[in-house]
């Protein structure tokens, strides 16, 4: 057997455009996921606030307990039955953001709970209200501890974004399959897009490590 990468070279513009879409969807989902994750994570700190805690816990267990693909299909194919027609791109970002938010919330909760109790006590003993103590003292320290697990989550999200190709979004995966459908060179094209995903995920990992080192040097131990 022999390799023929010419379909990849011929289609590189489409692949590049697909990669750009992949980046857009993922970045959108990461931003949304972090906002949701922060809110849900904070909501799961105190089991005594039963309504908030219960709602947030239900969110995490439902979203984490069902496949991303099923959730994406509900957004794109399911909701139109109720007259809710969202564009594919919107469904991709929102579906992935909501999915990621559940995982990010656990990262947020774990990082905040890992900050020594004495930090909250010291802040409160100065007279800080709870929210101010969280904002000024606890969360800044927790942020640094979130970076390594967030790196894992972002990388997983980049890879999972290949699923949005099934919502007719022209991402990297989608463009690759288009090239395969005319050239029949599956192996070469899949190897090529695997390489692109590999580069994207590793650049993300590298970037986060740089940020982590910067924050560490700034005293945010």
């Amino acid at each position, binding site marked *: 057997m022999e390799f023929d990468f010419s379909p990849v070279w011929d289609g590189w513009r489409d692949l590049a455009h697909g990669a750009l879409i992949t980046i857009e969807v993922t970045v959108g989902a990461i931003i949304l996921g972090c906002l949701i994750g922060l809110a849900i994570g904070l909501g799961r700190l105190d089991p005594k606030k039963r309504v908030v805690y219960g709602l947030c816990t239900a969110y995490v267990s439902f979203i984490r307990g069902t496949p991303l693909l099923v959730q994406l299909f509900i957004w794109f194919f399911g909701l139109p039955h109720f007259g809710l027609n969202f564009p594919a791109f919107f469904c991709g970002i929102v579906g992935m953001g909501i999915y990621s938010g559940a995982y990010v919330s656990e990262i947020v909760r774990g990082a905040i709970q890992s900050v020594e109790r004495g930090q909250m006590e010291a802040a409160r*003993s100065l*007279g800080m209200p709870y929210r101010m103590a969280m904002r000024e003292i606890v969360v800044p320290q927790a942020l640094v501890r979130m970076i390594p697990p967030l790196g894992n989550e972002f990388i997983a999200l980049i890879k999972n974004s290949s699923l949005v190709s099934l919502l007719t979004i022209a991402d990297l995966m989608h463009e690759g399959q288009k090239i395969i459908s005319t050239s029949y060179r599956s192996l070469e094209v899949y190897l090529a897009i695997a390489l692109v995903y590999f580069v994207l995920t590793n650049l993300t990992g590298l970037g986060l490590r740089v940020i982590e080192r910067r924050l560490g040097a700034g005293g945010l131990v």
Partner: protein
Amino acid sequence: MAAEPIVSAHGLTKSFGAVAVLKGVDFDILPSKVSVVIGPSGSGKSTLLRCCNGLETADGGTIRICGQTLIADGRMLPEADLNALRRQVGMVFQSFNLFPHLTVLGNVTIGPRKLRGLSAGDAEAAARKLLDKVGLAHKADAYPATLSGGQKQRVAIARALAMEPQVMLFDEPTSALDPELVGEVLQVMKALAAEGMTMMVVTHEMGFAREVADTVAVMDHGVVLEVGPPAQIFDDPQHPRTREFLQAVTRRG
């Protein structure tokens, strides 16, 4: 007429689960006095101190502090009033609890800036004065991770003083320190006492208690065994358990 106490606890009770930690504690501190609480580990002295700024919630009894009723029969002051009250009650912890993401100056200025409405400039000027007082003016821009334990605790004292409290609570302030670093912290506390700061100090430093305290309270198993001037407690203890405790401590020393 005697001055009204700044801190006044009556009939305090507190349990952690099935364990009764405070079993009806009465405790007063008069203005500008230093009150030292001693006693074996687990006697409830730290819990008593932590009740005095609401970090622990007493189950029963009352605490009046700085002219306000902090807690009465398990009912704590409303959140907003509690926060305001805590600004007047400085607290120093055994494990320092400095904010590691802020510089020394940041640690000392954050309270005044965020809670007393001082401008950054005013807060910094005041903080530098306080750091000078605890002998750490040269460490203003350092991060806590680079300081020794004794330096950390002196910063923590400056951080509490920056709120201009009416009373300072010290929870075993030297217990986490290497022996050679204890002196520098006690020195700062002695200077503070000499200035007339009202202080409640939970400690195992008997030398400090004898030298600086106006009154010494001995706690054991959740009750105050006896209260008196240091000379009386150390030289003529009334309660047999006080004698046992003091003997154990001095033998160790």
